[in-house]
């Protein structure tokens, strides 16, 4: 029991600690690719610290929803993070929810963000929420299908089981093709869900392009801090999900300290790698028009479908 609690807390700390770093890393990579020096990788930490200390300004039109939302978003995203294996393949909270629970926990955050966007009453917030709605609704099916493709290969929807089996090299060698399809699909989904280029641009405040930023436009001070942090956490969640499901190499399958150390190291390397990859992708592509996003997510859906198809064809 105690051990479990310690593990959970550790996992939580890792996630909280890593998430700003990932954001910073992506920014750094992009800066580099744009031949700028860019801010330090640790800049996000500083931002958060400052935001926490600033006095928040709250719109007079808002209700308690507006102030409650940051906490709910933060909590739900972190909760989702605690359900997926980070550096140990068997997470203690595994029983609390499988991958679908993860998806819906993230949806909970999205829901309240939308409400908050509407609460301020400015048309920016509404615009953001409305766009978030369409993007979210298009990513969901692709996400579920790709998840299903993965779940099939391991005959389970529990992340720990999937990761553990994969880590012990069960059934991964048999047929990589469904995996690759699912991976590609999930990558696109991750980009969309975490509001990166080409779906959204976290670095802009142009009303024509922004989605996530528009929703949170009215936030300031500690509330903004929590939301920014939650956004980082969401990124971390997706990256860890991809990293550990598709490449659980090095993850600790036992609770031996050394194994866990290695696991942690491997985890950091993997997510950093993915962050760099995202940075590169973001620099390679331009942001799509909102109504082109559908095409991209359609592709993701089809990929996931193909993954499923391949699985059955190769099995039967």
């Amino acid at each position: 029991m105690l051990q479990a609690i310690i593990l959970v807390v550790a996992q939580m700390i890792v996630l909280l600690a890593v998430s700003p770093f990932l954001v910073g890393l992506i920014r750094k990579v992009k800066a580099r690719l744009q031949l700028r020096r860019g801010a330090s990788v640790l800049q996000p930490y500083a931002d958060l610290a400052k935001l926490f200390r600033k006095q928040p300004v709250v719109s007079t039109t808002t209700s308690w929803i507006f102030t409650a939302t940051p906490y709910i978003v933060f909590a739900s995203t972190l909760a989702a993070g605690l359900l997926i294996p980070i550096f140990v393949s068997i997470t203690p909270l595994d029983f609390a929810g499988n991958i679908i629970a993860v998806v819906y926990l993230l949806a909970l955050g999205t829901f309240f963000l939308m409400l908050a966007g509407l609460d301020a009453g400015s048309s920016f917030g509404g615009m953001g929420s409305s766009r978030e709605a369409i993007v979210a609704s298009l990513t969901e099916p692709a996400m579920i299908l790709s998840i299903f493709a993965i779940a099939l290969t391991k005959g389970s929807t529990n992340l720990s089981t999937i990761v553990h089996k994969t880590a012990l090299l069960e059934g991964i060698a048999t047929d990589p093709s469904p995996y690759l399809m699912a991976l590609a699909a999930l990558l696109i989904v991750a980009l969309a869900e975490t509001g990166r280029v080409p779906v959204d641009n976290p670095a802009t405040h142009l009303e024509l392009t922004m989605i996530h930023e528009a929703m949170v436009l009215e936030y300031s001070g500690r509330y903004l801090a929590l939301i920014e942090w939650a956004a980082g956490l969401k990124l971390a969640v997706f990256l860890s999900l991809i990293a550990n499901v598709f490449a659980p190499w090095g993850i600790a399958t036992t609770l031996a300290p050394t194994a866990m150390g290695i696991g942690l190291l491997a985890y950091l390397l993997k997510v950093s790698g993915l962050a760099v990859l995202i940075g590169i992708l973001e620099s390679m592509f331009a942001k799509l028009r909102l109504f082109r996003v559908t095409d991209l997510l359609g592709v993701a859906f089809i990929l996931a479908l193909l993954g499923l198809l391949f699985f059955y064809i190769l099995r039967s």
Partner: protein
Amino acid sequence: MQNLFLLLFAGYIGGLLLPLCFPTKPAVQNILAHGSAGLASGAGILLGVTGLFAPEPWTASVQSTIPFLSFAVRLDSLASLFVLTISLVGLVASIYAIGYVTEFYGRASIAALGALFNGFLLSMTLVVIADNGFFFLIVWELMSLLSYFLVVTEYEKAEVRYAGFFYLVMTHVGTAFIILAFLIFFQAGGSFSFEAFRHPEQPLPEGIRTLVFLMALIGFGTKAGIVPLHVWLPYAHPSAPSHISALMSGVMIKTAIYALVRVYFDFLGGQFPWWWGFIVLVIGAVSALLGVMYALMEHDLKSLLAYHSVENIGIILLGIGAGMIFQTYGLTEFAALGLLAGLYHTINHAMFKALLFLGAGSLLYATHTRNMEEYGGLLRRMPWTGAFFLIGAVSISALPPTNGFVSEWLIFQSLFLSFHLPTVLLKFMLPLAAAALALTSVLALACFAKAFGISFLALPRSSHARLAEEVPITMRIAMGLLAVVCVLLGLAPMVVVPMLDRVVTPFAGQSIEGKVLALDGWALAPVNMEFSSLSTPVLALLLVALSMLGLGLVAAFGGLVKQRYYKTWGCGINLTPRMEYTATGFVQPIKRVFGAIYQPTVKLETELLEESRYFAKRRHFEFHIEPVFQKYLYDPVVACFIGMAERLRVIQGGSLHLYLAYIFVTLIVLLLFAV
């Protein structure tokens, strides 16, 4: 149990008759009608619970003097479950009504309203416990008829009359199909008793069984509101007074689900070809998707909720369909899981849909309008209603840890189990159904973000909203009760699952309680911990704890600095309600992306200022979405029959000679051919 039933019966009958004794005192009528209805439904709750855990189904019957008709009732676990649901919602509706019907003092006869309300509840209860086909049909039609009269309570309005008549005809058409299905059983068994339906003298041939399947699907589907038979629903449900809408959307359409389960798993003994389940599954997916998509385009709050009933019926059918498919291939425990998930969602939907309709009713009560665009900022003026509505919205959007999430999660699991199925087609279609479910649920999320956000948040958009006040205590209590139930159903699956298990065991042939519940009830784990697991209590705890953590972090890093209030940044000008995002604007992207389904027609007229063409004097914007089913399915059918009638008209041309000729010819023809 007998006494409980008699108490229930007496309560409803009392509520039906007593108000009529005080013709002039609406207040008294109100109390009498809804008080005794509450009493009766309280008895109903007890009846349901006892029936659920009774070892043997309770039966009773009164022989009628009319041949083939006997008033037989049988309270098995399935019936008990629905009695429980109906009575629970009924109780809440009665409490709510006490406050709500004050709206109608002087505008409608409270006595009639209360009497119909009681009769409606009674008929629904009898529908689910009837044990004789004839009796079932009587109470079934009675249920439709009474609800029709409730729908047309405000009969001065033309649209209400239209809605009512449309409903009446549709439900009657459905009943015709049901009668046909029952008559097939009658042919086989020579009796209308359900026992004979279960075990006909000679087994029905395959073709006939298929006919029964289709007839029942169409007949009960009409009542349930499956696409494309759903068209009446978004008209009828909103037109009724809100506590009635809650009953209709919450429980009445569920009686159809009850009947489907009864016919397929009980009468037909759960023996069917794979494509039956497949059809149910597909219909479920289509209904779910189209239901939510049309809901998104509705800006009349109650119509929006009505469309969501279509959606949720679809979701329920997804579960039941999956169950049927598994049943075909003898995977009984998965079948049980699917059925259980479907029934779980049935109950959940009853609760949160009732809650939401009551919430909508409160808004109507406070603002006297159903148009969302005229709401706004109501959370501050009606905090309680707002909070309860939010709980309902979260539940129907299937967000953890509420009840909607649990049942949808279970349905997901049963769909994921499809890889056990032998045929590739099904292996492949069930995941697609899962994808459809995912899309549905997230669209529902968007829809309720709209519904709640536009109605309750930001600035009031009209004087209606500005002057709104919180509703009377009884209404709040009613909503509060349902909100609590919603949360409990989500947090305590360990209580609900065993109940449902008792229901599905007889049909699936085995109890799966042990397979679904793990960690002595703290987690759901179909079919084992290896495959999947979910623990809503723990998730809830986690969410609370982590929010606390958030607060802690805030305190730790910055300290709770006093926050400053200032008006929203409106690009330099003061924010007015007219600058807010409208519901129409909110769904615009969705409308555009799914334009193929909506086929929207947009009309924008702009009148520019003479001085400068950069400024518009006034803009007129309107958009309609194509009512596809009415236009391409219903109107042609109606036109066809009317056309035939018009053509027939000539035979009654008014000429005496013609008439004589008819008789003459008839005589000759009969003489020539009949002899």
